[in-house]
């Protein structure tokens, strides 16, 4: 709780100029709102059993307490883990060695831009770890100490890591501007792996990881309930279009298995995007199935550790094999596509069964050569191809009340490079589309400030200040072009951009790309539509 300041203190605070302290000497501020809640003990215990070697020290603890109940040999565990990872990852070793502190990255991080906290400069965030590398593993650092930016591992350093490696969304914006390609995301991943070893963790990541492992979705919804929920959306589609769709679940013998983040099934407004997918599949008569076992496309393992990511990701191929699917179609998700594009085949490619084939669109015959190894296609690629071949009947006028802009999500942008496909789809389903300023989109896009497992409500202030650069650019097109809708291809965005827009650009609505597709799409045999997928009246259909 903020302490009450007396008037004279307030006057002093007005004259206050912060001391020019070395960053290493600044104390950790662990007041509420500065960190996400730690993981529940039973979730950690479950994961220790399911994915051995990644987690440790399950207990009840509070970051605001002085005593974090670390194991007595925590330092040894962390240092051994550090050494091991320096040998396993050239990236880590190289990034520890070659930074010249040129400062090109310093003002590229959304958290630094919004908070002004110097430890949020990417270079300094990495120095939190690099200083330990120098102090513990290099001779010069051991002898010269602080002068060379070296220090030894202490409990306060561990706490500092917890604070600042959970204020990095692994968005890779800094990496784009670094002349050596140093990627803070990589450093953050390593730091988090080390923290997990001694039980320093956050619940918003580990509970979804545990749930996805066990039930296949991040909320831990059991299969029969999952089926009910899908049926709600089928009902809603019937209300809107008058058409009852058949949605196969866990069925064998279909050509395609469709996997999307489970947030699209549970959360508003992702559910409208999910309805959009189902309508699209109906419109083209796709031979597909969903799965309850592999119902989570998102992979919070990416924010946890490499082995955790691998274990969660493996479900996709396992289920494709069991159901006999030839290829996988993936829904709109950010970090899921970093995993699919850069890790999936390397980690689990050997699991692919002989029935899996290079994806071919059954409607247009297009061969997805760029997915011939993973056998997994992004729905924006898939839909763009359908539209290009004129296979969809679209009525843009149903979206005529929408003035749209497009938010590039960090991972499809900087770990994949998917820019034109979603824009092509968007421009074919809405009439009015305006880009945000050039250095806030595409590969230079700003994060929603809730990625990498930081989309939890207890750190709303951190998210809001980190979201300022995105919000500001959005506000700009809102005022200049009257933009009222921001489309995105990411389930975390669909959750986090809503408060971001409410706070920084009130009045802008957030939608998934395929929600807008679903609105515009004309299904065979549908009734005249009067409402959109949110069951709000369509333009021209408002009641008097």
């Amino acid at each position: 709780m903020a302490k009450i300041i007396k008037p004279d203190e307030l006057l002093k605070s007005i004259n206050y100029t912060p001391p020019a302290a070395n960053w290493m000497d600044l104390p950790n501020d662990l007041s509420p709102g500065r960190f996400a809640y730690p993981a529940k003990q039973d979730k950690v215990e479950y994961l220790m059993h399911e994915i051995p070697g990644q987690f440790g020290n399950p207990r009840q603890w509070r970051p605001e307490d002085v005593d974090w109940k670390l194991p007595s040999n925590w330092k040894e565990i962390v240092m051994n883990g550090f050494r091991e990872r320096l040998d396993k990852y050239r990236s880590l070793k190289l990034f520890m060695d070659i930074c010249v502190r040129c400062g090109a990255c310093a003002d590229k991080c959304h958290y630094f831009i919004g908070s002004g906290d110097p430890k949020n400069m990417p270079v300094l965030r990495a120095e939190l770890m690099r200083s330990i590398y120098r102090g513990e593993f290099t001779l010069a650092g051991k002898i010269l100490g602080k002068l060379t930016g070296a220090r030894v591992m202490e409990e306060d350093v561990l706490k500092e890591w917890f604070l600042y490696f959970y204020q990095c969304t692994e968005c890779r914006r800094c990496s784009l501007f670094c002349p050596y390609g140093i990627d803070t995301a990589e450093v953050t991943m390593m730091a988090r792996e080390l923290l997990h070893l001694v039980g320093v963790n956050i619940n918003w990541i580990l509970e979804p990881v545990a749930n996805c492992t066990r039930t296949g979705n991040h909320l831990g919804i059991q299969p029969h309930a999952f089926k009910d929920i899908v049926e709600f959306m089928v009902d809603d589609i019937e209300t809107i279009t008058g058409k009852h769709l058949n949605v196969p679940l866990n069925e064998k013998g279909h050509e395609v298995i469709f996997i999307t983040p489970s947030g699209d099934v549970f959360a508003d407004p992702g559910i409208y995007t999910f309805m959009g997918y189902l309508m699209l599949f109906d419109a083209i008569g796709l031979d597909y199935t969903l799965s309850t076992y592999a119902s989570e496309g998102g992979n919070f393992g990416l924010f946890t550790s490499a082995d955790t990511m691998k274990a969660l990701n493996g479900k996709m191929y396992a289920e494709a094999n069991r159901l006999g699917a030839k290829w996988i179609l993936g829904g709109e998700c950010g970090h899921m596509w970093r995993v699919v594009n850069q890790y999936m085949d390397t980690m689990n490619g050997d699991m692919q069964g002989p029935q899996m084939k290079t994806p071919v669109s059954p409607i247009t015959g297009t061969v997805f050569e760029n997915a011939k190894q993973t056998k997994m296609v992004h729905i924006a690629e898939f839909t763009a191809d359908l539209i290009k071949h004129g296979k969809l009947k679209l009525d843009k006028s149903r979206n005529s009340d929408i003035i749209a802009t497009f938010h590039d999500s960090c991972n499809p942008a900087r770990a994949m490079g998917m820019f034109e496909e979603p824009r092509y789809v968007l421009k074919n389903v809405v009439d009015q589309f305006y880009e945000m300023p050039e250095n806030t989109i595409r590969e230079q896009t700003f994060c929603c400030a809730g990625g990498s497992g930081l989309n939890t409500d207890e750190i709303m202030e951190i998210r809001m200040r980190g979201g300022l650069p995105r919000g500001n650019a959005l506000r700009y097109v809102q005022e200049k072009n009257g933009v009222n809708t921001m489309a995105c291809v990411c389930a975390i965005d669909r959750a986090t951009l809503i408060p971001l827009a409410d706070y920084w650009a009130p009045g802008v609505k957030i939608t998934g790309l395929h929600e807008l597709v679903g609105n515009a799409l004309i299904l065979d045999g549908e009734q005249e539509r009067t409402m959109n997928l949110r069951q709000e009246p369509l333009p021209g259909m408002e009641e008097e």
Partner: protein
Amino acid sequence: MGLTDSIATRSKELSQKWADLILGTYPEQTQVVWRKNRDHFTNPVGSAILASTSELIPLLLTWNDAAAVARSLEQIVKIRAVQDFTPGQALSFVFLLKKLLRQEFTKELAARGELEELLRFETRVDNLAVIAFDLYVAARDQIARMRVDEVKRAHTNIVRRANLMKADVTAQKAD
């Protein structure tokens, strides 16, 4: 020349000085980055502060458009409401204007025996503080509301399913 005229002629200079004082509440190395970079998109905080102070000084002089005052204040208040400040620190920026005015005008006005003019003008700054307080609380309320709403949205369909079950139970009872 009266106080308001002096302020009006020095409006630009004063708003810059006020903005400098506000930037002084941030860590030293951050201040310099934010002072130097006038870019609206890559330095939203620095540019919002300067935009706000430059709008507010003329508004204080005309003092007839509460909505415009609130709009300008809101730019800063909303930012400071989500940064690492206590409520007092977050709103101290309004009183920095008082400090600035006293610094700039006390001597001159006292010499002319017109110090009252400053006191009269300062009541407007006090009013500014009150408006800022309202905006600050509104912003904090909004944060709290957004937290709740977000949790609700994340579970939309779960709640729907739970409610459905409840409906089933009541339906059975009715039989």
